[in-house]
Structure formats: C-alpha cells, structure tokens
C-alpha cells in the first residue's frame, strides 16, 4: 500500500512534504489545470504502509490526516 | 391544559395557555417587562406538559434557541418586548430565510430605547414588518382583547405551521396585564407541520431523522447548499419567500368590519381600536375596519370598502400603520385620510375620535 496524490483535489500546500516522517513526498514542478503545483510521491517504498498487504489498515496515516484537501489516497500495489 | 369553560385571565397568561393548547412544547425567553409573566407562567406550566422551558442569557439566544428547536419538529415560541424585539430582528430574518415556523409574542411598550417599560404604545408595528434587513415578509396578528389574544395565539401557531414563516403576535402592555373573561372552546383546529399543503411552501423536513438536512441563512438552492455567486438562485428564493405570503394574503388576512356602508371609516387595531366601538354603536355613519392581521396588509378586504370614503386612522404612535393604510387606500380610491396619533401611555378614548369627527 502506498500513497498517491489526486491532482484534481491537490492545491499544492506541501503540508504532506512537511509532516511525513519518512520523506516520501516532494514539492512538485508541474502546474495542474487549477494553477497549483501539486506535490508528488517521490519515494513510495519508504512509506511505512508500503509493505502492508491488501485489506490491511494503514499504519502511520499522518499525511492522510493532515492533507486538507483529501487529495491523498492509499493504493494497493 | 385549560379545560373548556370560562376563565378570568390576564393577557399574558392567556397567551401562554393558548400556546400550550396550540401544541407549543418549547419555550425560550429572557425576562423583560411587560412580558415577564408570560415567561413565568411558561416556567411553571411547560414541565407539567412535558415541554421544555429554558431561560436564555439574552434575547438573541432566546430566538436562536427556538429556531433550533423548531428545526427538530417542535412548535416553539418566545415572548419579548420593545428592546428585546430589536435584538431579535437579525434572527427573525434568519427564520424567514430558512422558513422556520416560530411564534413571537411582542408585548409593545413605550419607546424608543428603554423608554417606558410599563406604559402602552404601538410603536413596533412597522418594525415587526421591516425590522430585519433585506426582503422578507412576516405574518403579524394584532388582537384587541384577551379572548382574541388567546384565539390569535393559537392561529399564529397554525399559520406558522402552514406557511413555514415566523409569525408575530403584537400584544401590548395594556393587553398583557388586562384581566378579562375568556371562553375556551371545546375543540380547536390545530395544524401540524406538513398537514396543509399550500403553493410555494415546501414541506418541512426536521433534523434528526436521517434526511441529512442542510440549513443555511445564506442564499441557498433547493438542496439547502449555499449558492452565493448565482443571482438567479437568489432571485428565485427571495421571490418565493415573499410571494408565499403575499399571494396567500386573502386566506391569511382576517378583519373585522362594522358598518361597511358608512361614509367615514375608522381604521384601528389592537387595544386602541376599543375606543371606536362606543362611537359606532351610536352613529351608523361611522364604520370600523379593524385588521386582525396587520401584515400582510389585508388589501383584498380593504379595497372593497375604501372607495370614496373618508378614512380616520387611530393608533398609539407618531407614525406607523397609517402610511400603509394611506398607500393602499389611495390605490383603491380612498378620499381623505386623517390620522390620530396618541402617545404617552394613554389608551385612546372615544372622545379622541369624536374631536376629529
């Protein structure tokens, strides 16, 4: 399981970059159609949830909780 | 609840008992002379009827609390007087905007500001219609006896339930403390929410039943979501809010007309209208037009009798209902308009009218 960023929702606040203890995210360089720089998932394998198999509960979730836009979702590998 | 029969009650107590008969089960208020007795009576009676009584920290919160309670599907009311009524204005607008059925009893006293707490006046007549900002309509009832205060309070709850609108009962300091004989009938028609369907009035969906209601005082669409950048939504909403009262004016309005053929018509309401009866009794050339519903203005009833007549308006303020009477009267061919203003706490006497006649 690893995080992905929904570019329709992201407003580029970069709070996920700040709060992630494992430095999974990084500031983005591409402008979305709403005019924001969406953050990107750079090192998805560093995420604490990375090795959790299907149906498992995410461990850390701090990025999910902090993201004000609900733009971060967890996806199965 | 009062059993059918005859009673000797003060106006404030009668209004409170009437509310209980009408099904009011939530009262929030704040003490203010001369409406305090109504609240004190409710404090005693509400728990007995399994209703909720709460004394809030001010009038702002009193009306807020009854709007909140009304949204859970309870019939709710508050009572106040001059300064408290001024404080409630903002949330009367909110109730009109969100179409919340509530009843407010305003016991008028001398103003402006703190003015004269214990004397009678009719200075809040236009405030009850125009007091909150923006375009809205209220239903305002004006009784002139304790019996009528009793009956009209029940009607106020019915009108509120039918039209989903704040309804104001304009009592006054005299009526509130006046003790009179009243008769309680065997049965009253009590209208529950959604019992009667009227054009332009959507059905009432209370909170807490899983409907996921969204209520907002902002301009909102049919779902209740705030829409603040679409002029059309606002136009539709406000037009409907106004029309639902104005278009139903013939069914809402209720007047007393005596001697409709007379050349001279006295227009009066509330306690001041009682000065007119002795004159009409002796003199068939003088008629009386007494609106029990002040707002919406009973235009459909007034236009039938006003043509070519001399109109004398009698009220206890310096400028009030007369402007509306003149407006409508002129429109339908009324001839002369005179106003008798009486202020200072004196209830008009027949001699005041005789002077003008």
């Amino acid at each position, binding site marked *: 399981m690893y995080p992905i960023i929904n570019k*329709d*929702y992201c*407003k*580029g*606040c*970069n*709070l996920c*970059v*700040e*709060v992630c203890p494992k430095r999974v995210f990084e500031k983005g360089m591409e402008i979305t159609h709403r005019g*924001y720089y969406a953050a990107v998932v750079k090192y998805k394998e560093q995420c604490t949830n990375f090795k959790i198999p299907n149906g498992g509960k995410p461990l850390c979730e*701090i990025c*999910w*909780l*902090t*993201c*004000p*836009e*609900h733009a971060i979702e967890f996806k199965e590998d | 609840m009062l059993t059918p029969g005859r009673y000797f009650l003060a106006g404030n107590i009668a209004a409170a008992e009437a509310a209980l008969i009408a099904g009011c*089960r*939530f009262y*929030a208020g704040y003490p203010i002379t001369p409406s305090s007795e109504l609240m004190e009576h409710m404090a005693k009676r509400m728990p007995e009827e399994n209703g*909720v009584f*709460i004394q*809030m*920290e*001010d009038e*702002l*919160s*009193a009306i*807020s*609390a*009854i*709007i*909140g*309670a*009304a*949204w*859970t599907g*309870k019939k*709710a009311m508050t009572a106040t007087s001059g300064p408290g009524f001024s404080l409630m204005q*903002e*949330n009367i607008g*909110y109730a009109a905007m969100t179409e919340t059925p509530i009843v407010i009893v305003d016991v008028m006293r001398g103003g402006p500001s703190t003015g004269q707490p214990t004397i009678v006046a009719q200075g809040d007549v236009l405030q009850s219609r125009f007091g909150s900002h923006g375009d809205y309509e209220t239903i305002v009832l004006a009784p002139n006896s304790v019996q009528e205060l009793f009956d009209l309070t029940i009607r106020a709850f019915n009108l509120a339930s039918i039209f989903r609108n704040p309804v104001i009962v304009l009592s006054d300091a005299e009526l509130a403390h006046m003790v009179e004989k009243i008769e309680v009938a065997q049965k009253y028609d009590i209208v529950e929410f959604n019992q009667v369907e009227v054009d332009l009035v959507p059905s009432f969906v209370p*909170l*807490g*039943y*899983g*409907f*996921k*209601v*969204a*209520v*907002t*005082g*902002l301009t909102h669409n049919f779902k209740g*979501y*705030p829409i603040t950048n679409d002029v059309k939504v606002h136009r539709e909403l406000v037009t409907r809010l106004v029309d639902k009262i104005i278009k139903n004016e013939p069914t809402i309005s209720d007047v007393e007309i005596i001697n409709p053929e007379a050349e001279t018509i006295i227009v009066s309401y509330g306690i001041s209208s009682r000065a007119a009866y002795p004159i009409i009794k002796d003199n068939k050339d003088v008629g009386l037009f007494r609106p029990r519903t002040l707002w919406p203005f009973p235009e459909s009833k007034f236009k039938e009798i006003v043509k070519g007549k001399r109109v004398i308006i009698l009220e206890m303020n310096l400028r009030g209902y007369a402007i509306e009477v003149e407006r409508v009267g002129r429109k339908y061919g009324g001839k002369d308009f005179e106003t008798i203003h009486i202020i200072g706490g004196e209830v008009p006497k027949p001699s005041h009218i005789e002077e003008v006649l």
Partner: protein
Amino acid sequence: MEFFDFYRKDRWPHQFCPGCGLGTIMNCLYKAFNDLNIDIDKTVFVSGIGCTGRVPGYINADSLHTTHGRAIAFATGIKLSRPDLNVIVISGDGDLFAIGGNHIIHAARRNIDLKVIAVNNANYGLTGGQMAPTTPYNMITTTTPYGQREYPFALAELIAAAGANYVARWTTAHPNQLVKSIKEAMQTKGFSFIEVISQCPVNFGRRNKMGDPVFHLRWIKDHSVPISKMTFDINSPYDIVDLNTKGIYIIGDLVKRNRSPYGEIEKEIEVKGPQE
C-alpha cells in the same frame, strides 16, 4: 463508513484556501466518527458564520448554518428538544468567542451536552484577516497594522472556568491526538470543548512572515507545549494567562471532570433559609 459517506462528494473539492487547517480537522472528525461508529443520522452539525462555519455544509448529515455568533444558542434549542441527538458545534474563534462569547460561556455554565470544536486560526479568515480576540500579542492583521495590542483570549481556560466537563486544546500539527480528543469528547457527558489551533497561511500567515502553510504549521508546532511538561500548577489560571499572552499554546486535556450535565442536577441541593 467511507470518507465520502461522511462528506458530501458533490460539493468536493472544498473551497478552503490551499494549506488551510480546516481540511485536516475534517479528516480527524471523520476518523473519530468512523472509529466510534457513531450513527451519523442521529448527529446534527451546527455552525455560525466564517470559514469554519462552512464545514458542516460539506458533511453529509443534518447541518444548520446559522447567523453570526449564535450557533451555540441554536444548538441548545436542538439539544433540549431532541436529547437523543448528538449535537456538534463546529465553528471559528471569531464566531464562538467574539460575537458569540456570551452564548458559549453560558452553555458551558449550564453544562449542556454539546460538543464544541472551536477552530482557532487567530483571525477572521473569511472577511479578509481582521484581528480576532485570539490574535496573539503584537501580531499583524488588517485591523492591527501596528501589531495587536490587546491581550488574546485563553479560550480553553475560560471555558474551564465557566464550568465545562471536558476541555482540551490541540493543534493541526497533532492530528492523531486530535482524533483521540474528539473521541473522548463524544463519550463525555456534558459540555465538551476542544480548541484546535489551525493555520491560516493566506490571511494570518502572510502578514506575519508565514505565508507558506508549511512555515505556519511549523510555527504552531514550535509554540505548543504539552501540558504534561508544564511545571506550574494548572489550577492557578494566572500563569496560563501570561503564557497565552506570549502566544504559547498549552496543548493537552485541560479539564476532565464529572459535573452533572444540564437537566440532571442532583435533586438534593435545596436552599435552606435560616427560618427552617
């Protein structure tokens, strides 16, 4: 319950500014509700005016967006006439404490069973960033161009003094603790109050060199001190007032007590006049 069962998907994405803390609080609210499995049909969300006042509009439950400052009074009416409902008030600091300050202290005094989440972003965000009663000393807003020179409110301490049963303060930098605190509040009977310090990078932050939400969040984190590490006696409110003035937020559960909620006061308290 999926996230979009709790929130109205047809209104998403919400219109809060990028980096606004309200989104974080909305996540925490969802998580607490999901964990406790609370029936959302039996829950009413009430709010006043302001950015935070728009939050219930996004929640897929009964919601009441009221006039400025009166949210608590509306909620009181709802709770008293339908005691079976969970009534949650979520509103901003300006709404609850500036214009509505009277209603909240009275609700806390009555100890009525409401759950109040006050989002404190230290200014009026919706109207363009004016000074609020929570703006820390010397901070700049549009109506304090020379720096705020009033002392800010200590919201949580005031509500504790007014008589609430559960009082806590957390920040958006502590989302997990916030979730726990919301759960605690939901399970406490009586008036429960949670103050959440939140970032407002666009209005408050930008004028105070914290225009980037990341900086603002860092500032909040640096200025919050857990109550467990405090060395003074929390029963003495004076020290707390002083700390608050300096813009330091004491986070944690301030008060947990068991006064009887409104309507359940012990009947034996009887006034005994000397004549008896």
